[in-house]
């Protein structure tokens, strides 16, 4: 069948079998950033955004792409498609935070991160872990990936941070992460698994807020200076970042 869709902003017209897997079609179209790990929905290496929604291209068929807007990791950033690629802040943060080792999971991870930040611009560490929970990494141990996603969140929120402070991520999360020290805190900070029901059993009318609500970073962190891009450094004291609503 003849298919037309948008791939990373570029209109694509291609003939494909309707039941060809999207992951195979995309790789044939040179979107080699789309990886196949498991082929069964478990690993997230084949992640793409379909009309902005994080989906798995190993469980999508070519026919389902008709008329859709697809974004792969290569399409997250900016720049001329034929010229030099400008990495997305998430991608830059992955590089700067050391969140990439072999790199096989990275395109999928950055897609998951982009989808997460679009929905929740100021995730806690636990929320990041949940957001990327459909993506496996065999190399990094995830800590630096979580660091990177949070660093990117700060940058995307256009937070200005005092260079000497270098603590925006910590400040942002201090309260919410206090309970998250791995591993015991993994559930301690998670209301819905400690007292299942408590988080969601909000009275009628309280639906869209409650345990799931987030205050945008921009409303929570304000400080002077310029963005450092690096947030892994330990608190060097004199931090001027304020995390008003982080509790």
């Amino acid at each position, binding site marked *: 069948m003849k298919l037309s869709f948008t791939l990373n902003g570029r209109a694509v017209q291609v003939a494909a079998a309707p039941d060809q897997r999207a992951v195979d079609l995309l790789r044939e179209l040179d979107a080699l950033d789309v990886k196949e790990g498991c082929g*069964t929905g478990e690993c997230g290496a084949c*992640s793409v955004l379909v009309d902005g929604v994080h989906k798995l291209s190993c469980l999508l*068929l070519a026919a389902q792409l008709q008329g859709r807007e697809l974004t792969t990791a290569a399409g997250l950033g900016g720049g001329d498609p034929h010229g030099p690629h400008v990495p997305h802040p998430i991608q830059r943060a992955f590089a700067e935070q050391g969140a990439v080792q072999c790199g096989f999971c990275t395109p999928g991870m950055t897609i998951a991160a982009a989808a997460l930040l679009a929905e929740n611009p100021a995730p806690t560490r636990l929320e990041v872990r949940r957001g990327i929970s459909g993506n496996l990494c065999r190399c990094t141990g995830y800590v630096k990936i979580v660091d990177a996603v949070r660093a990117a969140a700060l940058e995307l929120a256009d937070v200005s941070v005092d260079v000497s402070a270098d603590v925006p991520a910590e400040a942002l999360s201090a309260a919410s992460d206090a309970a998250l020290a791995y591993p015991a805190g993994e559930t301690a900070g998670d209301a819905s698994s400690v007292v299942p029901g408590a988080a969601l*059993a*909000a009275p009628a009318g309280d639906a869209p807020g409650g345990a799931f609500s987030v205050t945008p970073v921009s409303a929570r962190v304000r400080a002077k200076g310029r963005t450092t891009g690096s947030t892994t450094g330990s608190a060097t004291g004199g931090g001027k970042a304020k995390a008003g609503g982080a509790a």
Partner: protein
Amino acid sequence: MNVVFPRSLPELFAALAEPGARILAGGTDLLVRLRAQPEAAAPATLVSLERIAALHNVAEEAGGQSHSLDGVFGPARLPGTLHRVVRLGAACTHAELLAHPLVRARLPVLAQALAVLGSPPVRNMGTLGGNLCTASPAGDCLPPLLALGAEVELASASGARRLALADFLLGPGRTALAPGEALIAVHVPVPGVDVRQHFEKVGRREALAVAVVSLAALVRLGHGGIIAEARLAWGSVGPTVWRCPEAEAALIGRRLSLTALSEAAALVRARVRPIDDVRASADYRREVAGNLLLRLAEL
């Protein structure tokens, strides 16, 4: 396989009437299964639900008006239930339902199950209808919807019908769907505000975990915190979702105390008949099936 995209229910029924047609919803069960099978066994045509707007709605309705089958619906409803029903379109994804204010406010037991189903991309793709029609004993939507007394709305070219969910789920991978029939919606009676709702799943890990044991519980508390009614439904401890009327009965007239719950848990362990499999032993499942009840003391 050809893939077709009907845009309305009449188009859907026409497509399903063709030989070798098979519904494709999110594909998270079907495409995994088809890939594991020889190609010869594949359906001739996959009929996608993704462009049928009528299957993607969530709405609250007055309970009385839309029901012709009072006999089926009546007994399933908890006394004290408001006469309201939430209708969930079968092709809603788990993520759509989880984000929906009606689901979160009225049906927290379902929202809690959806929150731990698969992973974000699986929730963005997988649908309620696919979860029910797969009829896995580990399907996370099944225990909450059974405890809630949900009904399914089925339809084909030759008409529509309603069934209690309990009568729809016949066994592992088996449902009451007739050839050419589709699951259109799930109707869920809204529990009253005096009903506590709770879901918990125990898996091998936090995300992407097939349930080793799960429990959905609805407990209606009367005056002084005395239990007036309990509805308990366990996943992954038998060929279909398992209920334990003895434990439910034992809780009535008691408080949600550890003592009362421990006694009910002993009844559960004595009666449940789980199996050993790659994920857990029968003994472990039996123990945990009882233990999950104790969590209700925290409600």
